[in-house]
């Protein structure tokens, strides 16, 4: 199965990239956009099974995300 992992800066943590994007959007005519947050999207494939969710969760905690500054969520997709 496939896991789709979304990693974003934790709420309250300054995201300089997001802020810069937010500031440049009005220049293109997009007014009123706020809270732009830039994160990462990671796709991976792993063996099907009941343990897959727990495995991905552990991967996120141990490597894919840094829980001190990042939040993560993931979905499992069976193709």
């Amino acid at each position, binding site marked *: 199965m496939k896991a789709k992992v979304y990693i974003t*800066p934790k709420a309250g*943590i*300054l995201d*300089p*990239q997001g802020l*810069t994007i937010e500031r440049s959007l009005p220049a293109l005519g997009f007014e009123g956009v706020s809270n732009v947050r830039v994160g990462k999207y990671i796709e991976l494939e792993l063996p099907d099974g009941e343990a897959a969710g727990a495995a991905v969760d552990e991967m996120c905690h141990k*490597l*894919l995300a*840094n829980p*001190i*500054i990042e939040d993560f969520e993931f979905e499992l997709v069976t193709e």
Partner: protein
Amino acid sequence: MTTSPQTEVTPVRFGVVVFPGSNCDADSYDAVRSFAGADARYLWHKDTEVEELDCIILPGGFSYGDYLRCGAIARFSPIMNSVKRFADGGGLVIGICNGFQILLEAGMLPGAMHQNEGLKFVCKQVHLRVENNETPFTAGYEPGQVIAVPIAHHEGNYFIDETGLAELEANGQVVVRYCDEQGETTPASNPNGSLGNIAGVCNRERNVFGLMPHPERVCDEIVGGTDGRAVFESMISAVAGKAAASR
């Protein structure tokens, strides 16, 4: 006739870890070897033997291409288990720049790094105020001393949550802060947005120290300064002092 046994002075032994992508390893090696009382050797990241060492340096650079997050992959190098054991046993470990990021990712120091506030790689000379000189890394400085040391990084924006910060402050674990020439920790003297102008922290036991600035680059007048020398001098004195005390 009494013979006072000539105490043999063995040099303080430093190991400099070389990860794929390290680029300040040679600077660190040379800085250490410029001291009469010290010797250095390189440790490949796949090595696991660190036994006969007194101090370990995790140098700056771009280990594993900074993939995923700076230091995130290097912390799984075989040598890191040995470095952890070494630190748990009281050995002195200093992480400089990328080495600091690795210590954070490895959980050997509290907090995390993210991108510089200005989004740019910053390479320049900065001033640091020595906040705590009661560590084996800073004993050679005066409390509050202002030193000039270069930085060169893109992810040096130190972050820790409120509780963590309070603990750091209460335990004297904030070792150096970015400041101006007069020693004032102003927003303008903060090159990367680090919380509380924090440039370097140590663990609670004070034998693990990480900092973004590069003391090894200011160990010789010929490269523009010697303000970094006291870091290595302090480490050498700490080890030599301990050895003398146990004799």
